[in-house]
Every structure is written in structure tokens, then in C-alpha cells.
């Protein structure tokens, strides 16, 4: 244990606040995480639950219901995680620590893929890559240009994996970059003075310092990829490629919720094992405090001849995952057929008056009062969930930090992480079962479920912010007579503000673009943009669906802008020379 953490533990032990904080944190986690899990467990403990477990594990459906989807889920999860950590990590390193040209633009674009709804990226994929498996009218841009993509690139495991990577590497970037940015010049200089090569500096100094961030990013990416429903549902179904999430959805939809819960329970158990590994890696790196009382002086590593090739590769990556899908969606929202983006464009799907000859008389989305309502509800849901999740995250994150490295802290942290492993659909179903009697159809239930689903993001951003603030700063404040609240408001919050704001944007964006969570929670009086888009898509009104996806994207980017996402606070390393 480092001296810093010893003194933190000592100071904490003297005050009553941590006990209250711990109890509060556990109470919140119990309500938001344990209760829905218990709901699932109880459903499996019934006779129907036992039969479902039997069918799913040993019945004749076991292979296609559980084992193959489990294999797919794990393979996708691992491939996406590996690719995201490597891509996000490399990008973060290039942007924060090297003299790569265009790094400002690249850094700004790299934050964007996370804001495009997964189902929209998947739809964008079909706009570009679809072959004629769904008929000749459904083919994408490439096939229309005469370059029909191979079947494996059109549907199934490969596109699902690529779409999730394109969507999730941004999370890895956003989590790794702040950690890299706080690695001081003094540490690197010290290593260089001892004669370490560039590779040795990366391996011996930089990597261990950011290992916790890498592990956390990997865990988040794995969980997000493994529980994603939209991407495999859109790109896997035509070739009958299933994951646990799509199989669970099918089970819920066809009135066998117990089977769905059995699959979800399996997913949680398997993922939890991987989560433990990640937690171990994180513990190893936890004692490095890099945001010390001293200013961080940094110098950028010279890339030499690799400057431009790397810049071009990085630019290609961020462009292919932001501008290309966004453009595909915008163009297809203007096109008479979704893959025919070079046809006669029309604003009808945006501005048109109802015309019985087009899409059964649906008006353009900007003229549709339901869409106006959905916009406001979605915006409000994002704001309220963001603020509430961050408040809960602060309590839980503070409790974890104050508890130090013991079993209690680890338990709390892992519990707070669990919602990530539960598909949004199951969280929605469990929350309706749990709190629906009081809150069904209410805005509050959407927000509460949203807080539960985004808790890991909130706690992670609080913990990441918290972990890097050297105890000496808080200690000084305490010695100067500040109470726990005073320390929090006067020292911790201002130092952590950048990351907390980033956490807020993460939660907001996730809420605004998420479909899986809200698909069971919405009601006629409570329309949400993603649900509206999904309804359009399943009614075959692809252009309207794409137009709404563009609105969601604009809303997410606007939030990012309003929170200073493109300013210095969000990615301060971008402004540095």
C-alpha cells in the first residue's frame, strides 16, 4: 500500500461519513441492481423456471438456443473488446502523446461514433453492404454499383462485429485518453534518462499507468458488445445468426420469459467471470495517482516518418465510423429506396405533408406532432437520467474510493457494474415487474431504469476521476479544516469536473440513443425517438427511420457540444501543443 492510500484510509476511518455513505451506496445498488436480479432469479426458481432451465441446457433446443448463441456472444464480445482496446488505445496514444498531425480533428471525431445509435449503424451497414438475400430491391450501394459484397460481409458474425467495433471503440478512446493525458513528462523523462528505448517507455511506464483504464475500457466494451441486441437482430437474423440477447428477446416476445431469463442468467454468470479478471487487473494498477498536486508537464513523442501515415490511418478510421454512416443515413432518408442513394432525392420524409401514396400517409417527421412529443420526452429522459445517474454514481463511487481496496469495495464496484451485463430489454422487463404497479407508464420509471442501466458508466467515470486525484490534495483540505462535504465540493468535484461532465454526456447519449431498454417501458403517452424510429423501420418505412436516427444523432452531438464536448474541458490534451 502506498503512503497516500494509508493516510486516506486513516482519515476515512475517523469520520462517521463513510459508514453512512457505504450504507447509502449499498441501498442504491440494492434497489437498482439487486432487485431486478432477484426478480429474474425468482422467475427461475418457479416450476416453469426449472423447466426452462432444463430445456435450455439439456433439451433438444439447447444447441441453438444456448450453446451456439453463447459461443457467438463470447466471440463477438472478445473480438470487439480486443479491437476496441487496441484501436481506442492507439488512437488515444496518438492523440495525447505524439506529434501526429490533425490530432485535434481526429480526437474530436473519435468521440462521435458512440453517439450514433447501434441500430442506426447497423441500418447504415445494410444501406451500404446488403446483398440480394432480402430481394433485389433491398440491395445496398455497393451491389448497386456492381460490386456485390461477399455473403459473409453482408450478414452475420463479421458485420455484427465490425458494426459494434465501429460503435464502441469510441468508449475505449474516451476512457483511455484521459488516463494517458495525465502521464507526466517527469515520469517519461526519468525513464528516458535511465536509457530506456521508446518501446521500453511505452511498455514499462505508460502501459502500467494506463492498465486500469485499459481494463475498465475492455470490460465496458465487452459488456456492451455481449449484451447488444440491435446489431445482431438487424444483421444476424437473415442468416439465422443469433446471440444470447436475440434469443432472449425471441423468448420474451413469444411468451416464454423464463427461457429468456435463463439465457440472461447464463450471460450474467459467464460475463461476471470475465469481469473478475478485469477487476484483478484494475486492482494491480490502482495505487498510481497521476493527478498530483504538481502541474503535469508533457512533451509529445516524435513519430518521425510515421507522422503522416499514422495520421491518415487514424483519419480513415474515424471518418469511416462517423461521417460515412451518418452520410449513409442522411442520404437514405432522402432517397426513394433506402439503398438507392443516387436516385432522385426528396425532402418528403422530412418535410412532406401526408400523402396517401407514400408510406400509407405518414407525414414528414418534422411535421409529425408525435415526433415533436417524442423529441421532448427523449431530451427530458436524457437530462434527468444523466443527472440522477451521476448523483447515484457519486455516492457509489465515493463509497468505493473511501472503502479503499477491501472486499466490500470490490463487491460494491462489481455490483454496480452488473447492469452492463443485463440486456436492456431484460432490465426493462424486470423493472416493469418490480416497480410497475406504482410507476407503470410514468416518466419516473423510464428514468429509474435508465439510471440502473447506466450506473456502470456513472460509477466508472466517478471512480476514474476519483482514482487519479492524489490523496494529498484532499488531505490538505482536511488539514485546513474542511469537512467531508467541503472536501467533496471544494476539491474533489472541481478536479473531477471534466470527467464527471464526460460521464454525464455518456449517460445522456446512451439514454437518448438506446432502444433495448425502453422498448418495453414506453407507452402511448410517453413516446421516445428510438422507439419511433424502430416502429418506422419495422413498418418498412426505412427513410423515416433513418431520418429519426439522424435527429437522434444531432441531439447527441448537441448535448456533446453544450457540455463542452468539443471544447478544452472534455479533451484538454487536444488543445496542448
Amino acid at each position, binding site marked *: 500500500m502506498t503512503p497516500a492510500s494509508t493516510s486516506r484510509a486513516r482519515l476515512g476511518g475517523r469520520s462517521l461519513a463513510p459508514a453512512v455513505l457505504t450504507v447509502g451506496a449499498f441501498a442504491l445498488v440494492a434497489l437498482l441492481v439487486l432487485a431486478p436480479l432477484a426478480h429474474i432469479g425468482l422467475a427461475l426458481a418457479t416450476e416453469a423456471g426449472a423447466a426452462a432451465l432444463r430445456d435450455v441446457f439439456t433439451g*433438444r433446443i439447447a444447441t441453438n438456443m444456448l450453446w451456439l448463441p453463447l459461443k457467438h456472444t463470447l466471440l463477438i464480445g472478445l473480438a470487439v473488446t480486443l479491437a476496441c482496446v487496441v484501436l481506442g488505445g492507439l488512437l488515444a496514444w496518438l492523440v495525447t502523446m505524439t506529434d501526429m498531425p490533425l490530432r485535434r480533428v481526429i480526437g474530436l471525431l473519435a468521440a462521435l461514433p458512440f453517439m450514433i445509435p447501434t441500430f442506426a449503424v447497423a441500418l447504415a451497414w445494410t444501406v451500404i453492404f446488403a446483398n440480394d438475400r*432480402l*430481394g433485389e430491391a433491398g440491395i445496398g450501394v455497393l451491389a448497386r454499383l456492381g460490386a456485390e459484397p461477399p455473403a459473409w460481409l453482408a450478414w452475420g458474425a463479421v458485420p455484427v462485429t465490425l458494426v459494434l467495433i465501429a460503435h464502441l471503440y469510441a468508449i475505449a478512446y474516451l476512457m483511455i485518453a484521459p488516463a494517458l493525458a495525465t502521464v507526466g513528462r517527469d515520469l517519461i523523462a526519468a525513464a528516458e534518462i535511465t536509457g530506456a528505448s521508446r518501446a521500453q517507455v511505452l511498455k514499462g511506464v505508460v502501459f502500467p499507468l494506463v492498465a486500469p483504464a485499459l481494463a475498465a475500457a475492455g470490460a465496458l466494451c465487452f459488456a456492451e458488445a455481449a449484451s447488444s441486441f440491435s446489431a445482431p437482430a*438487424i444483421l444476424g437474423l437473415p442468416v439465422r445468426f443469433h446471440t444470447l440477447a436475440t434469443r432472449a428477446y425471441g423468448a420474451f416476445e413469444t411468451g416464454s420469459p423464463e427461457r429468456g431469463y435463463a439465457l440472461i442468467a447464463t450471460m450474467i454468470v459467464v460475463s461476471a467471470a470475465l469481469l473478475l479478471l478485469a477487476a484483478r487487473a484494475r486492482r494491480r494498477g490502482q495505487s498510481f495517482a497521476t493527478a498530483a498536486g504538481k502541474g503535469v508537464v508533457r512533451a509529445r513523442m516524435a513519430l518521425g516518418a510515421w507522422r503522416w501515415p499514422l495520421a491518415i490511418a487514424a483519419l480513415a478510421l474515424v471518418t469511416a465510423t462517423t461521417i460515412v454512416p451518418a452520410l449513409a443515413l442522411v442520404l437514405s432518408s432522402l432517397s426513394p429506396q433506402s439503398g438507392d442513394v443516387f436516385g432522385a432525392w426528396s425532402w418528403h420524409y422530412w418535410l412532406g405533408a401526408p400523402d*396517401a401514396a407514400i408510406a400509407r400517409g405518414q407525414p414528414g417527421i418534422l411535421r409529425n406532432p408525435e415526433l415533436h412529443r417524442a423529441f421532448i420526452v427523449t431530451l427530458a429522459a436524457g437530462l434527468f437520467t444523466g443527472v440522477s445517474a451521476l448523483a447515484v454514481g457519486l455516492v457509489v463511487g465515493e463509497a468505493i474510493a473511501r472503502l479503499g481496496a477491501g472486499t466490500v469495495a470490490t463487491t460494491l464496484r462489481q455490483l454496480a457494474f452488473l447492469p452492463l451485463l443485463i440486456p436492456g430489454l431484460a432490465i426493462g422487463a424486470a423493472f*416493469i415487474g418490480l416497480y410497475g*404497479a406504482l410507476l*407503470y407508464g410514468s416518466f419516473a420509471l423510464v428514468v429509474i431504469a435508465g439510471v440502473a442501466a447506466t450506473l456502470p458508466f456513472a460509477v466508472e467515470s466517478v471512480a476514474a476521476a476519483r482514482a487519479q486525484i492524489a490523496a494529498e490534495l484532499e488531505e490538505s483540505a482536511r488539514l485546513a479544516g474542511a469537512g467531508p462535504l467541503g472536501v467533496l465540493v471544494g476539491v474533489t468535484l472541481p478536479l473531477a469536473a471534466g470527467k464527471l461532465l464526460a460521464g454525464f454526456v455518456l449517460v445522456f447519449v446512451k439514454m437518448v440513443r438506446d432502444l433495448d431498454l425502453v422498448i*418495453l417501458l414506453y407507452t402511448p403517452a410517453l413516446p421516445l425517438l428510438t422507439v419511433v424510429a424502430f416502429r418506422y423501420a419495422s413498418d418498412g418505412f426505412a427513410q423515416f427511420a433513418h431520418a429519426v436516427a439522424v435527429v437522434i444523432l444531432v441531439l447527441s452531438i448537441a448535448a456533446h457540444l453544450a457540455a463542452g464536448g468539443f471544447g478544452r474541458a472534455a479533451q484538454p490534451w487536444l488543445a496542448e501543443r
Partner: protein
Amino acid sequence: MTTLRSLSLALCAAGLCALVPAAASASEAEVEAAARAEGQVTVYSFTSRVFRLETAFEEAYPEIDLIPFDISSTEQIARIQAELQAGVTGADVAYLADAPVVTEALVEPGHLEAFVPPAFADRIPDRFETPLLAHRLSTKVLMYNEEAHPDGPPVDTLWALTTEPWRGRVVMVDPSQRGDYLDLLTEIVLQSEAMAAAHEAEFGEPVKRDAGIANAGEQWIVDLLANDVVFVSSTDDVNVAVGALGQENPPLGFTSYSDRRDNEEEGWALQVANEVEPAPGIIYPAFLGILANAPNPNAAKLLITWMMGDESETGGPALAPFYVPGDYLTRTDIPPHQDAIPLDQFRAWRIDPEATAAARRAVADLVLAHQ
């Protein structure tokens, strides 16, 4: 409105439901007056045509707001059950198919109640009045592209779909996600004798059954899956795949006969393969029911009454969206659509909800087991 709703809920909670203006014996005029006072009615509908009903209904009753929701039957059942568990009622009227599950899961426990408008009771055959009022008959049948095949369907038996030329070229909605498609496959299993006969007639030999396969219908499903059938998530995906104009070699698919009504609007050439042996698919009732504890019970009754049409020859604006080839209205006084195959010549199997309900779980597992 919220006040009114909570007032009725409060009265009901106090065991005074009878005081809420919803008495079953109320005359039509009383129902209408009470419906106007309720001021709104929420509908879960398995067809997007509900949006056209909204406009027409609000023209007829401007003071009643129809709140339409386009939700598949399968999802309606899940949603209504989730709502029940939570002790709330999200809608007044459910318009849905999936008769086997609806009967078993919603009607028998009393969650969804029948209402037959008195004005139409004697113009609807009895079998369409229970367990719920059937608004019309809907279909899931084999359709082909009549632009590419102007001389009729390119196949004359369902067994052809399991042969090499149709490998990867038969499209349907995933029966693991949508009940009406599971009902279609279940009926094919229940009709195994006809399936076996059709196989003999076509190939001159009996069906060879794999190990563990009980009958010809099951074998057809296994063969179809082995022939790389394409699953999609909505009937409109099937319609576009099969029906879109300008295709050289379009696939075949199972979808609703009535989607042919959109051919001109959507640029499709959908046509039913009615002659295919042993049958092109299934025909089943589309139910209208009132949810137990519906917040606007009178508006619900008024809407159902209105949805059965008026006294004009083809039923007026309420039935206009459904007076199309491929939908068979249950009102006996409305003449069949002239462009459609008359019901007595339409060769689809009529499902028996009870038999289907008993067999569909095993068929669902068969589909899961052989993907």
C-alpha cells in the same frame, strides 16, 4: 381526462365499479354519451392501418381522441401481461391476431373481454363472436411476384420450397419471434396427412423422415430450414423482398394476402399462390377485444361498434382500410371484394385455435432445434 380516469379507478378500487358509467346493459345512445365524456380511447393494433382509422374515427367523433399504437400481436400479448402484472391498463381496445395464444393467455383468464355490438350481432356468424369478436379474417400465405411470373406461381407444391432451386430464396418472418408465423408452421404440422399426400403426388414417393421426426409436416419444416430459408423481422421485409418490381429472379415468401392492396402504392407485384398444394397457408381471425379495467370502456365499445362499419354497401370509412382483396370481413351483409379470390375458393387452411395452442410449443422447439 386524467382526473376522470383516476376517479373511475378510485371508484372501482372502492368496489363501486357499477357507479362508473360503464354498465353493460347501457343502450347505444348511453354508451355514446359516456364515450364522449371519456374523451379518448387507446388502441393497440397489429396493423398500421390503425392510423387511417384514427383520422376517420376522429372525423366521426371529433370530441374523442383515438390514440393508436401499432404493435404486433405477439408484443401486445407480452405487453398486456406485463401491464397486468403491474396492475395497470395501458389501452382500452386490443386489435390482434394470434388467436391460439390470445384465447389461452388473455381471454380465458379474463384479461381481454369480448364485445359484440348489438347492432351487428345478427349479421356476424356465431363462430366469429367467440371467444372474441372477429373483425375480419387475415392470412399468412405463400406469395410470389406476378411481374416476374405472369403465368402464375413458379411452384405448385409447398415441397418445392425445400428443393435446390429455392435454396436461400424463401423469405418469412422468424417464427421464433412472431406468433402468426409459428401458427402457420404449426398448421403445416397439424396437416401432416395432406403434406404427405402432396409429397407423393409431386415426387411419386412417400416422405423420407429423419430420425426423431414424427410426421411429414415436421419433415417439411426441417427441410425448409436445411434449404436456408431466410428469416426477417417484419412482413414488410417479406413484401419488399418478394414483391418489389423490376426483379429478375425474386424469392418467394409467406406474408399476408391483403398486403397485395399496397402493390400500386409501394411498387410491388405481390400475388397469392392459391393453387399451391396442399394449401397456400393459413387464414385466421383478427380479434377485437376490450381490456379488463379499460379506463375508457364506453369509448372502447363505441370504437368497436364503429369499426364494424356503417350501413353503406361496403361499410363506409371505418371498413374502407379493410375492404381490400385478401381481407375477408366477418359481416355477412358486406359483399366480397370483386378482385379477391372468394372465400370459398381460397385454399388456405382455417386454423383451429385450440389444436394450434396445444401443438405450437413443440413446433417452436422443432424450429429452434433445426436451425
